[in-house]
């Protein structure tokens, strides 16, 4: 690994000042599971690494206004075990528990995961389906970024230079909403998803859909929402025809990248199948 300078401030204010002073040559480190590999492989060559491990306030996981606030430095393991997270949606806790292995989950953080913007990651998918909003702060201002706007491209976010991810806020779910996360793993259980699907739906007493969110991972350069598929379900009952149509529309919204886990056509076909399975589970 190339030499670099390491700073580990005690306060958020100090962290933001350091970042503002030299945003181009400063890389933020949360858990470090991805960054350390990227530095070992010489793909990232920072002059300075800003470590956030002393900012305990960013580890908080709390219920807020019937929704959730998830601190950027909360680890996947802590989020998977968290009572507030499980209480909001068991599927969200299960999503964090589905990431890699126990060692990665204990070290890697929510904020690091989102800022890394790997499109095959698990948490962004379920967080998108739960209408998550990222809160980022710079030395000068704070802003809320709906997760769909956070993911700009492969490994690229819309965070501005000098901005630090503080937390993700999740609004309350509609009454009776049901959520699931499906991860297609044809190889090994510790792998990245070939494709993954999160679905959140709610129905009225007559069984008609009043809320639908479908998000997909591993299905394009960014984790994505399948808006047309969602719209196609509104007002309808979850019968075979509605589910199949939504699954086809979800697959059409994908733009998969061919890699070792399959061709683009294969992943698109799998996106339809796993969307169908997810919808049948929550229907």
């Amino acid at each position, binding site marked *: 690994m190339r030499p670099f300078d*390491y*700073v580990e401030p005690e306060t958020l204010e100090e962290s933001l000042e350091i970042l503002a002073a030299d945003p181009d040559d400063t890389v933020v480190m949360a858990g*470090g*599971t991805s960054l*350390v*590999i990227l530095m070992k492989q010489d793909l990232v060559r920072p002059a300075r690494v800003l*470590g956030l491990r002393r900012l305990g306030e960013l580890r908080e996981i709390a219920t807020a206004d019937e929704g959730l606030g998830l601190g950027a430095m909360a680890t996947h393991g802590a989020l998977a075990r968290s009572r507030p997270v499980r209480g909001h949606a068991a599927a969200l806790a299960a999503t964090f528990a589905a990431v890699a292995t126990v*060692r*990665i989950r204990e*070290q890697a953080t929510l904020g690091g995961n989102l800022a890394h913007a790997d499109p095959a990651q698990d948490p962004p998918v379920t967080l998108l389906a739960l209408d998550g909003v990222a809160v980022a702060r710079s030395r000068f201002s704070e802003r809320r970024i709906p997760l769909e706007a956070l993911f700009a491209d492969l490994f690229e976010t819309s965070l501005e230079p000098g901005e630090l991810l503080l937390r993700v806020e999740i609004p309350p779910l509609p009454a009776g909403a049901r959520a699931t996360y499906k991860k297609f793993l044809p190889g090994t259980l510790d792998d990245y998803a070939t494709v993954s699907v999160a679905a959140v739906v709610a129905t009225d007493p007559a069984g008609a859909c009043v809320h639908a969110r479908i998000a997909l991972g591993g299905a394009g350069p960014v984790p994505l929402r399948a808006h047309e598929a969602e719209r196609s379900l509104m007002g309808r009952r979850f019968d075979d025809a509605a589910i199949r149509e939504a699954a086809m529309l979800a697959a059409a919204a994908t733009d998969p990248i061919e890699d070792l886990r399959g061709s683009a056509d294969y992943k698109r076909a799998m996106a339809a199948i796993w969307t169908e399975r997810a919808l049948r589970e929550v229907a």
Partner: protein
Amino acid sequence: MSQHRIRFALNDAPIDVTVPAERLLLDLLREDLGKTGTKDGCSVGVCGLCAVQVDGAPMSACLLLATQVDGTKVRTIEGLISPLQDAFIDEGGFQCGICTSGQLVTADALLRAKPDATEAEINDWQMGNLCRCTGYYGIARAIGKARDAR
């Protein structure tokens, strides 16, 4: 480039060293502190050979900067005394041995966190510790035996 004085407990003994920012915990343990029971395998956090416990949680020493354990309690295979070791011998929980220290460190963390770990939890935790001799059945049996012996 920057140098950092770090203090942590290694197997309950105090450590006070100065390291360059880019020093990995794995290299600090093996090369500077002589704890070679922690093995270097894939170097990308996948194989589990370098598993150590940081404040009780299993982590990959190859993915941690040494500075990240400042103020923590680190446990390596050298500091592990557990019914697991006898159980691994009794059940044939290893063949070539290269993965054994990582298997034991992870299994010990599991039984500390979940003394009544189910078979599913054993498999979930050990999934990240690869055994290229494919000795998984013996490993899982050994962990179950150590759990039941408590």
